[in-house]
């Protein structure tokens, strides 16, 4: 159970760093406009 949870987390989190980077860029653009 624990291992399957960890494996699923690893699987679902693979693209998270890229998504977080994109979000930071989007928010910074919005901040410049505001």
């Amino acid at each position, binding site marked *: *159970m624990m291992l*399957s949870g960890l494996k699923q987390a690893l699987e679902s*989190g693979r693209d998270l760093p890229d998504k977080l980077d*994109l979000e930071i860029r989007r*928010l910074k653009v919005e901040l410049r406009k505001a």
Partner: protein
Amino acid sequence: MNNSFCSDFSANFFADLLAGLIVAVIVALWLNLWVGKRLSELAGSEQRKVEKRADLEKAIHYVEVLKIDVNGLLEALPHMIEWPRDLVDEPFRKLEWVRQVGIHTSLWDILQPSGELPKLLDPDLLGTLTGFYGHLVYARRAQNFVTASHLASPSSVAATQLRRSGGRQNTQI
């Protein structure tokens, strides 16, 4: 005739003056209301801008902190998943290994209940973050369950004896 002219003139003059005063007062009141309304609108819009900027700055800070946390977890996860093969026949050491796996979701545990994230972040990103941390929370609950059930069961006594004897006996946990 002269007298009549003066009385007509003064009557007209005062009537015009009165009418002018009334119109001036009405215009002044209207101007006052209009300018006041415009000023309060401007102040409100400025306030909204300041609030929006503060929200955006807060969101950037949250996402940067989450990024550090997620990167750390993604770096640690492969080591957590890697099952030490030499522990297959050693249930107590296996239990110890399970207990020592550090599944840290404290940042998410603080941020998520605050209810601020849905207002600040992109829904798609929020969904991915919820899935990622959800699996970790599930894994941690399973870890707690396994640890607690082993500690509570009679076999945990045998496990303690096994640890004391230095792992020489083969006890089933």
